[in-house]
Each structure stands twice: as structure tokens, then as C-alpha cells.
């Protein structure tokens, strides 16, 4: 396991971090040169851990190749996805690891300034993180080759600011809304400079890869999904919490063996925007080839009405849509009204047709990932639990 030792107990100080093997990666990376670091990450086949799964090595390469003296590394610690709290465990127990990852990324692309964008709900971690930043900055300076400045930026509570360009807008003190892409942040991001935005967990993998080598990393996992992944399990389970598993592990191992669920009607994988898998389909594999998302796993037992669950789910998106584009702003509103009507027993078959029509348009033409993925769970539920919708239409829930 790669990250487990950092989340099981708190690393109180930089010395304690060093005792766990911390900083060896940074030292090694400082002597490797940009190209070698990037090659190593590319060979490891590490992919982003925030859901989209973009190959991290390529992202680094893209930012590295832009000729520009000023570049930025941003650690996306705006863990807003519903039921997802694995980044929190890393930030709470070992911010040093995340910061070391940021510094390695900075060395790789030639950036000397980093920002950590922390969601406001994690404000209680500010002091610890600030202290870790100070210690790490000093330590990096004494290594000689790594003059890297870090700044902590605390968000204001909007889910959309986890989207990388909205996050940039937010740091630039504007309304948190996604930008049009292209240009991609690796070309023109924060203050128009090349910017690398990487998730907490992804960054936390970098030190391990540098120390142990890409081969050791890529020997774990499946063909398209290398390494391990943190999963935060909640809902109707007896042992909720964060678990680290090799990618490609079956859902059964996570939900039944680890989290001890004994009655599984459905599982939502990847938070509110994630896929819904039926309880009799637990052999599905947790990896990019099958189902994954950012790592939030919520279990529903047989006492849960899936139509009602989806109404809650979509209410979240109605609340969090930024309002910039039509399909998401208006679509979420109408879908919410329709679902309420169905739950109240006033729905009709036509409502389901309308939901499908709107969901298709949101998924195909929204401006950002929020609107595109918002109807994912709803569409799965419509397919897997159709009888429940019919029941709700005739009798409500």
C-alpha cells in the first residue's frame, strides 16, 4: 500500500515525517532534472485521482513545455464531492506528504510558486497546514535546488470551485465559474500563466513513485489503472471510513469485506455525480475501465427509496450549479420540479420522458463537468430501478 501509513495516524512534525521516509523523494527529485522526473511519472502511468483520470505525466509535460518563466502549481483540495473525504484524511494526518508532492510537481514543470486551494469546510486544518508549509519551505530551501513558495487559499463553499478553471477564477477573486476551454490551464491558467492543477491524492502518490520507481507503481493495478486508490465509504455500512485498495479491486471487497455492509440495495460510486450500481452487481471493478470517480462510495440499503434518493441527489446539483450555461442552470431546476412531482404522487410517464430528454442535453452540451455528470446517477437509477419510478408515479413515495 502506498498511502495507508500516512492516514492511519497523525504525523505530528516534519521530523516524524522524515522518520516515515519523507523528503527522500524531494531530495532525489532535486537531482534528477525536469525531464527525468516527468519520464518517471509518465512511465508509472499514474492518472488523476479526482475522477477524470487524465494521465498525470502528460499533464506535467504539457505545463513543462510552455516557455514561460512564471508557472504555478495548484493543489486542488476543494474536496466537495458528496460522500468523499479521502483527501481530508491526507491533509489532516500528513500535510507534509501533499506538500512534498507539490514541490516535486513544481520541480518537474519549473514552477516556483504553489497554491493549495482548501475548501472552507476544512478550515479547522488551516493552522496545521500553514505550519507544515513553513517547515517545508525552509526544508526545501536548505536542499538548495528547490526555492518553492507555497500559499494557502481557502474557498468560500461552492462545489463548482472544484472545477479547475472555476477554482482559478476564485483565486483571482472573481465569481467562481468555469472558463471556456481551451485554453487549458496548463497553457494559460492562473493570472494567464501555465498552471498545473492536481488533486491532493494524485500529488501524494508522486513521492512514492520517485522513491520506489515507476515499475513498482505500475506493477499494481490493472492495465489502464495503475497504483492504489483511496475510497471513502459511507451510508448504510457498519464500518464507514477511508480504505486504500489496489485499483481493479471488486466493489464487493470494499463494501462487504472492508466496510461490512450487510444489506446492499445500491451503491453510488463517485459521489453525487457518480454511477449507481445495483446491489446484485458487486463484482464490478473499481478502476478507470469500469467504475471509479473520485473515490466517494455511498451504500444504500433496502429501506431506501431510490426515487427519493435521486431527488436528494438532484437537489444538490440545483443548489450547486453556477448558473452560467442553460442546460445545467435550467435543466437542474426542471428535473428537480419533475422529481418532486413524481415523489408526491403527481407524476406521469411523460415526466420520465422529459427527464430523459433534459438529462441527455445536460450530459451532451453543458459547459463543464458539473452539468455533464449531474444526471449520471439519475439515468442509472432510471434504468436499474424502473419499477420504483412506476410505483412512485402511481402512488408517490
Amino acid at each position, binding site marked *: 500500500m502506498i498511502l495507508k501509513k500516512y492516514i492511519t495516524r497523525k504525523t505530528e512534525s516534519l521530523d516524524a515525517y522524515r522518520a516515515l521516509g519523507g523528503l527522500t523523494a524531494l531530495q532525489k527529485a532535486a537531482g534528477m532534472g525536469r525531464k527525468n522526473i516527468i519520464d518517471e511519472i509518465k512511465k508509472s502511468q499514474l492518472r488523476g485521482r479526482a475522477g477524470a483520470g487524465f494521465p498525470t505525466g502528460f499533464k506535467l509535460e504539457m505545463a513543462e513545455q510552455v516557455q514561460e518563466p512564471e508557472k504555478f502549481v495548484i493543489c486542488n483540495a476543494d474536496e466537495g464531492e458528496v460522500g468523499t473525504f479521502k483527501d481530508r484524511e491526507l491533509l489532516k494526518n500528513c500535510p507534509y506528504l501533499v506538500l512534498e508532492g507539490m514541490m516535486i510537481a513544481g520541480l518537474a514543470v519549473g514552477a516556483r510558486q504553489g497554491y493549495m486551494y482548501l475548501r472552507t469546510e476544512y478550515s479547522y486544518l488551516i493552522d496545521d497546514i500553514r505550519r507544515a508549509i513553513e517547515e517545508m519551505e525552509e526544508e526545501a530551501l536548505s536542499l538548495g535546488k528547490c526555492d518553492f513558495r507555497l500559499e494557502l487559499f481557502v474557498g468560500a463553499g461552492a462545489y463548482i470551485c472544484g472545477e479547475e478553471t472555476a477554482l482559478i477564477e476564485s483565486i483571482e477573486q472573481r465569481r467562481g465559474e468555469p472558463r471556456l476551454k481551451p485554453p487549458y490551464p496548463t497553457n494559460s491558467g492562473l493570472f494567464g500563466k501555465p498552471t498545473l492543477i492536481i488533486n491532493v491524492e494524485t500529488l501524494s502518490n508522486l513521492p512514492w513513485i520517485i522513491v520506489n520507481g515507476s515499475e513498482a507503481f505500475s506493477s499494481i493495478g490493472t492495465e489502464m489503472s495503475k497504483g492504489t486508490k483511496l475510497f471513502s465509504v459511507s451510508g448504510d455500512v457498519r464500518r464507514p471510513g477511508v480504505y486504500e485498495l489496489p485499483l481493479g479491486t471488486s466493489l464487493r471487497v470494499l463494501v462487504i469485506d472492508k466496510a461490512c455492509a450487510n444489506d446492499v440495495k445500491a451503491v453510488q460510486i463517485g459521489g453525487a455525480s457518480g454511477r449507481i450500481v445495483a446491489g446484485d452487481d458487486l463484482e464490478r471493478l473499481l478502476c478507470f475501465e469500469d467504475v471509479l470517480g473520485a473515490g466517494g462510495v455511498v451504500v444504500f440499503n433496502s429501506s431506501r427509496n431510490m426515487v427519493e434518493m435521486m431527488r436528494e441527489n438532484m437537489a444538490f446539483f*440545483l443548489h450547486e450549479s453556477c*448558473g452560467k450555461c*442553460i442546460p445545467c442552470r*435550467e435543466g437542474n431546476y426542471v428535473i428537480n420540479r419533475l422529481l418532486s412531482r413524481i415523489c408526491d404522487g403527481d407524476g406521469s410517464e411523460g415526466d420520465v420522458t422529459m427527464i430523459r430528454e433534459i438529462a441527455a442535453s445536460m450530459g451532451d*452540451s453543458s459547459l463543464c463537468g458539473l452539468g455533464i455528470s449531474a444526471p449520471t446517477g439519475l439515468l442509472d437509477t432510471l434504468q436499474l430501478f424502473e419499477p420504483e419510478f412506476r410505483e412512485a408515479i402511481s402512488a408517490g413515495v
Partner: protein
Amino acid sequence: MKIQINGNEVEAGEGDTILEVSRRNGIYIPTLCNHDDLSPVGSCRVCVVEVKNNGNLIPACSSTVRSLMNIETGTPRVLQTRRTNLKLLLANHADNCLVCDAANLCELRKVAAELGITNSYFIKSRTALMMDQCHPSIQRDLSKCILCRRCVRACREIAEKEVWAVAFRGHDSRIVLRDDAELKMEDCEDCTVCADVCPVGALINTSKGRAEKEPCLYEGNIT
């Protein structure tokens, strides 16, 4: 560079948008938030087109062409998505065209007619919002605003001021003055550039009579 639009090979320049190339070649793509004098925001998703092997639909107004791009502007998927998005917008729009000052000049009605939409069967979501007639030459009716942000952009990019802004989130979004008050002469004198670019009747330049405004031509395909 060469690209394909609807199966025909056409010539395109570096940095051209799909919309520009299509127009040059006589291919019509409806637009709403886009305005020739303003930077694109890509928010209305009415100009979406399909690019072969590219996953989701993309907006023609703000996507630049790439060599050998294969674009389809009129597939059922494209037309259906445009219609759904427009119907969603109409569901959140005041239904008082007959007494609206924009009336036949309204670009929303024009695009709706082109896409063959007479009415939205989605649940009506528009609640009456502020009607603001404090300013001598700009009348605001927020119930008609489609949040295209042309006014915000025109004010910033043409008048070089920051009178308008988007406030609140999601479905509650609204175009406001800095303090969400009525528009007065102190806020803005008289350039009326925002009202001139507003595609609907949300901002009306009351100093212009209807005869002075260009007539709206329903030139698209009415299907």
C-alpha cells in the same frame, strides 16, 4: 487548413471559430449569447455542433478549428439538443411577447421559430422579477432576461465600465447593478450599449422608437 463541415471540405484559417467558417460557407448555425462585437462566453449552448470522435457536443461560437476536423451541424443529436436547451430557456422566460417592446426584434423568438419551437412543455419556472423604469433611456425587465451576459460584456468591453454583474448562483442568478438596486443616471449616463445588444426585451433602449430599430428577419429554416 482543410476541415470538413457536413461532409464538404472547406478551407479554414488558424484561429477561426467553427461559427466563422460555417458562416463564410453559407452554413447557418443559430446563436444566442454570441455577439459579433463581444468576446464569446459559450453559455447558451444553442450553437452546439458535433465533431466526429470528440465526445460531447461543442459550441461553434467559441471553439476554434483544428486541421482535418470533421464537423456536423445538423444531425438529429445536434438539433434535438439545441431544441431542448431552447425549450428550457423558454420555460424560464416571461410569456408576454404580445406586449413586449422587443416583440418582432427578439432574437429568442427568432431562434425559437428557426428551431421549430412554438412553446415549451417543460414546467414553467419563471417568477415575476423586478421591472425597473428609473433610468430615462434604459428600461429593465428581469423576468425576460436569458442571462446571455451580452450586457455585462458590452459594458465592460465597449463602454469600458463595470455597471453590470452577475449575482447569486445557479437558477437564482440575476444580472444586477453592484448593489442590486434600480439603474439610475448616477450609475451610468447614456451610452445604452447594453440595451442595444440585449437579444430580448430585458433591457430596452426607450430613447429609440421602433422604426429606428432594424426589423427582425425570420430567415432561417422553419421546420
